[in-house]
């Protein structure tokens, strides 16, 4: 039977706080699933319940079809990488990686072969005899990953493993984790609050809020078709247009800023917020048909792309994401914004 991790209706309470509520999720063999959400949404609790560090108050966890809900963490065969490195300071890199194998009573020869193999896999050759305090943060996290993989775990649990690293190392290690995970085919549960990280690394993203799952889907689906306003707001940047639904189905923006075409925003006369991604907002000359008038506030250069922030009549601020080479505006310019509402989300 393939090693699959299943959460079924997990509930976990800490005093008055419901950390997880009706939490159900399946992670298939070879799949990397990311738990994404703001601080305190329950993602780390879910991971710790999977690892056995926290006991669920209700529900069950199965691993490869076997119920492991009450099994102690040392019997679950799950490799875990923590946010703050967690290497054993008194052991060298080689000894750290071999720790789990020693517990499993592998012979010294077999241990050496397995450790060498995983050292090569995570590209740590040359560092095997160093101690944790002689390594950089990125190197330490590679060792932690190697140590978790060395025991050939049924599931790999990654608890914000990149959050303590600087941007460059974070990007490198993120790709490394994905490469190694694909090579080994181990089912992986990855916890992060960084949406870019989640979008880049995952097969599936599970967006959480207040202990409950909001949406589970492929990164593209979660980004392009968010199922709730929370997901829309949390994953990626969003513009929020407040207005009233007109008789023809379009949205009359507050403050007389203009009208957004459409026919599915809600009941006529209803006040709603329409969520639109900055990449669905196009900068065009002022007065162009179908556009709304705006005044440029700031132009934020971000390398290949630039964010143009502009104020509509009535002071609603709108962000437009454009390719830097196409930006020919500056603060104070009056421009037109064409807003594509095809992928918008209505918040009531």
């Amino acid at each position: 039977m393939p090693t699959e991790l299943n959460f079924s209706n997990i509930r976990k309470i800490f005093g008055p706080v419901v950390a997880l509520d009706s939490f159900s999720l399946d992670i298939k063999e070879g799949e990397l699933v990311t738990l994404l959400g703001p601080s305190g949404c329950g993602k780390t609790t879910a991971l710790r319940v999977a690892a056995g560090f926290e006991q669920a108050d209700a529900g069950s966890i199965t691993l490869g079809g076997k119920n492991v809900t009450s099994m102690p963490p040392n019997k679950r065969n799950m490799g875990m990488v923590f946010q703050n490195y967690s290497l054993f300071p008194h052991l060298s890199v080689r000894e750290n990686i071999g720790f789990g194998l020693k517990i499993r009573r592998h012979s010294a020869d077999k241990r050496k072969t397995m450790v060498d193999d995983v050292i090569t896999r995570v590209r740590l050759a040359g560092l095997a005899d160093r101690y944790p305090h002689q390594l950089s943060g990125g190197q330490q996290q590679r060792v932690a990953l190697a140590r978790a993989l060395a025991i050939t775990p049924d599931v790999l649990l990654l608890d914000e493993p990149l959050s303590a690293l600087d941007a460059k190392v974070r990007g490198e290690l993120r790709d490394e984790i994905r490469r190694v995970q694909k090579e080994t085919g181990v089912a992986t549960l990855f916890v992060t609050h960084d949406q870019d990280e989640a979008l880049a690394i995952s097969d599936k993203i599970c967006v959480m809020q207040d202990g409950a799952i909001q949406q589970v889907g492929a990164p593209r689906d979660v980004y392009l078709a968010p199922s709730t306003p929370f997901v829309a707001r949390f994953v990626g940047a969003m513009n929020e247009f407040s207005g009233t639904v007109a008789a023809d189905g379009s949205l009359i923006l507050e403050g007389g800023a203009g009208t957004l075409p459409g026919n599915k925003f809600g009941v006529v006369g209803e006040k709603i917020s329409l969520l639109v991604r900055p990449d669905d907002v196009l900068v065009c000359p002022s007065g162009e048909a179908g556009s709304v008038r705006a005044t440029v506030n700031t132009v934020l250069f971000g390398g290949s792309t630039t964010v143009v922030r502009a104020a509509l009549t009535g002071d609603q601020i709108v962000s437009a994401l454009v390719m830097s080479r196409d930006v020919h505006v500056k603060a104070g310019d009056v421009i037109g914004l064409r807003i594509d509402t095809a992928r918008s989300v209505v918040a009531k």
Partner: protein
Amino acid sequence: MKRRNILAKLTLIVVGLFYALPMISMARFAFQRIPVALLGSHNLFDRWTIKPLFTMFGKPLFRESASLSIRLALLSALVTLVVLVPTVVYVHVSMMRARALIEVISILPFVVPAIALVVGISGAFRESAPWFIRSNYCLVPFYVIISLPYTFRSIDNGLSSIDVKTLVDASRSLGASWGRTLWSVIVPNIRVAVLSASFLTMTVVLGEFTIASLLLKRTLPLYLSQSQGQDPQGSFAVGLVLLLVTASLLGFMNRFSRRRNIAQPVAML
């Protein structure tokens, strides 16, 4: 600045003399074969001998009490570590909010006089387990308790200097049991604290008089006190040696912990 330096040095010299003069007097009394009344600066280097020490070592009662004290010291240190390390680790991992309360409990031996402890415990056990009070080893729990103010702090400080919770979780996730985690992961990382707690317990045991006296056990401090009348030179000689041994243990501990700190360079980030 210069004036402050002079003042500091002067203070150091005064404090040093305060400790050194009684030691020198004690050493002269114990190891110089000159009547006390004739001891003076003119014969500071005359007729030194370590014979009183050997005379004392030759006495069977001395050997018995010394052996008992050493056994009690080792056993108390062992019991302290076996009881205290897992308890404090558990507090750090699962009950951090209870740490303040446990810290308060740990200083109770300072508040409760030794005599109250002995009367209470011996009263409770005299009827139900008289064999416990009769045994010399009944002193061990007392010694563990009276060492608690020092040993708890030592272990607690050691554990505060590492990320216990994450290390325990990492070890457990790799398949280690609680026992294996304690032995292979936690203890090696708090070696200095463990050594320090052991030395402090041994130091307390080697100097403890009241409890042993109340429970009529012939430990080394009690023997030395009793033999002062018959062989004052010998008992002072042993007392001085004991003092040097405990001072060396503390010095060694201090040195070892400093070396450990130096050997932990800052991570290169």
